[in-house]
């Protein structure tokens, strides 16, 4: 079979620098990923990188446009794509939560009124979570600035990601439930994981070794979404 560099899809944004750091420590040349000369495709050997929107990484991998990729567990839940999940990279740790305005009387999600509106960037995850709780809500899909929705009366609650809870607090929101905890994952196309098994296993093993070391700052892995849900 023809040999090509291993194609790795990486999410642009905050996670990119942290993942590049991990790859660096595996001895992979990531100089092409530095912000100064960033391209959509960073050619290299033995690894070439595709830089995509975080939410698109599972798509690139499922279709086989990339052999492997790095995606947050939150993204994997939402995408529901058929990819193999090889490793918890321990970076990009955040929580997916349900939050309501601080002044709201709601203390638990079960207290949300019938057909409450819930604004979110994660409509599938939100639906699955509330369905699992037997709560009927109206999910309002938005593309960003979710915190705005309750402030202007578009929604009674939000489902959103938070690292420290600060942005939510700053916008007058209060967390009432945790949907799941997310970290970045190494994912692979299931067929490529067989055809290029050795390369992918080596990459996964190298990443595992560097994430296990204290520098990565990763604690125990957290991968719990509520019993109702999983991608």
């Amino acid at each position, binding site marked *: 079979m*023809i040999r090509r560099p291993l194609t790795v899809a990486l999410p642009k944004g905050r996670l990119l620098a942290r993942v590049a750091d991990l790859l660096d420590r595996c001895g992979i040349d990531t100089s092409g990923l530095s912000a100064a000369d960033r391209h959509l495709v960073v050619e290299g050997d033995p690894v070439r990188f595709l830089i995509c929107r975080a939410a698109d990484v599972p798509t690139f991998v499922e279709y086989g446009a990339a052999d492997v990729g790095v995606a947050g567990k939150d993204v994997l839940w939402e995408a529901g794509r*058929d990819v193999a*999940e090889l490793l918890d990279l321990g970076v990009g740790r955040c929580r997916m939560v349900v939050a309501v305005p601080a002044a709201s009387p709601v203390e638990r999600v079960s207290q949300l009124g019938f057909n409450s509106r819930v604004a979110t960037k994660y409509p599938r995850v939100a639906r699955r979570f509330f369905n699992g709780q037997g709560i009927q809500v109206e999910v309002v899909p938005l593309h960003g600035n979710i915190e705005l929705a309750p402030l202007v009366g578009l929604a009674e609650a939000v489902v959103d990601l938070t690292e420290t809870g600060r942005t939510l607090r700053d916008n007058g929101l209060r967390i009432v439930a945790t949907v799941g905890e997310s970290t970045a994952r190494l994912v692979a196309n299931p067929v490529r994981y067989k*055809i290029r098994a050795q390369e992918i296993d080596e990459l996964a093993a190298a990443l595992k070794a560097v994430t296990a070391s204290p520098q990565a700052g990763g604690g125990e892995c957290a991968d719990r979404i509520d019993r109702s849900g999983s991608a």
Partner: protein
Amino acid sequence: MNPEIAAEPAYTRRMIPRGTRDFLPPEAARKRALETALKETFSRWGYGEVITPTVEFFECLSLGDGPELVEKMYRLFDREGHTLALRPEVTTPIGRIVATRLREEPLPIRLFYVANVFRYEEPQAGRQREFWQAGVELVGALGPDADAEIVALAVRALEAAGLRDFRVDIGQVGYVNGLLEDGNLGPGGRRALRRALLRRDYVALEEALSASGLSPARRRLLAELPRLRGREEVVRKAAELADNPRSRAAADNLMAVYQALAAHGVQDRVYVDLGMVKDFDYYTGMVLEGYTPELGFPVCTGGRYDNLIGRFGYDCPATGFVVGVERLMMALDAQGSGLVPEDGMDRWLVGSTGAGRPQALAEAASLREKGFAVEVDVMGRSVPELLEYARARTVSRVVFWAGPDDRREFAAPGYGEVTKGVGL
């Protein structure tokens, strides 16, 4: 635009439903050529074709198909109130036939099919709502020789289709099932492990393992399972690692299948993957999947399913595989290979004046008898017009009868006049 058409959703009048497709002449011909190659291969291995109804009783189809497929069935009602469904695959209908009309037949029974199937799911990544399958079932034979035949036939069929770069992976579901039959594992723990294996979520697998009451050795083995792949040495290793009779029997069975493949001459195409996990309720033994480097999903899939026909009241083992016809076409496209459809043969265009018509039609008939594809002009075209049309349609020869005794012939690529024609 006609206001009535504008008002009607343009969608349903001019479009086809999502997940369905039209095959136009060149593609339809390629598809037929591919199916013909597969059918011929199956026939030469002694398999007989069956054609089953597109629509069957839902109760029958759901007897064979797991909940995931049942959910994807297109369902409808007949006028007596029975629930019907479009077949989502053909193995279950074949199970029904074997358990009923072929019940008295001597075993084994070898059957094949080429059929369209229907699944209501999101069309993406190689999945369509209507798609074509070509498959075989070897019914009534237990043992590694039957499974080896299925693997060898899968390899030969893909080769016959013109696929160059591909491999077939085989596994054995008994191996992992043996590991999961553990007194220290509650039903919840077993479900979590199966689910993680099935989804290839190895992060969740490790978590479920550390939460389970399994012994450290067995945990390690299950965690390593996805990486137990390679050639014969892996089967040997798997047999050594097997710590229970069921897993050991599965490894022995896989070894026997793999060794039988050497005599079939296909061993170099075949890899072993103990971590290959497929529908737990359906497969009972060896399983297989075929891959090409270009596609991110398998081109064929199959395995042993000894319990299906029993659900129709006739206990009878079976093994088989199925090729996704459109997926195979995609792989052939990507490899720039594949069969040249038969009507890529020399094509002729015959035109005439009114006076030359009888001669033109007579020549067209005689060319057709010789095996050429012949178009007769029905547009009353002149020679320059015919040549322009021929060029656009890549017709290689043009004949024009200007009168009963006045025949002219032109040939691609320049469409210059040929003095000594081939046609007469």
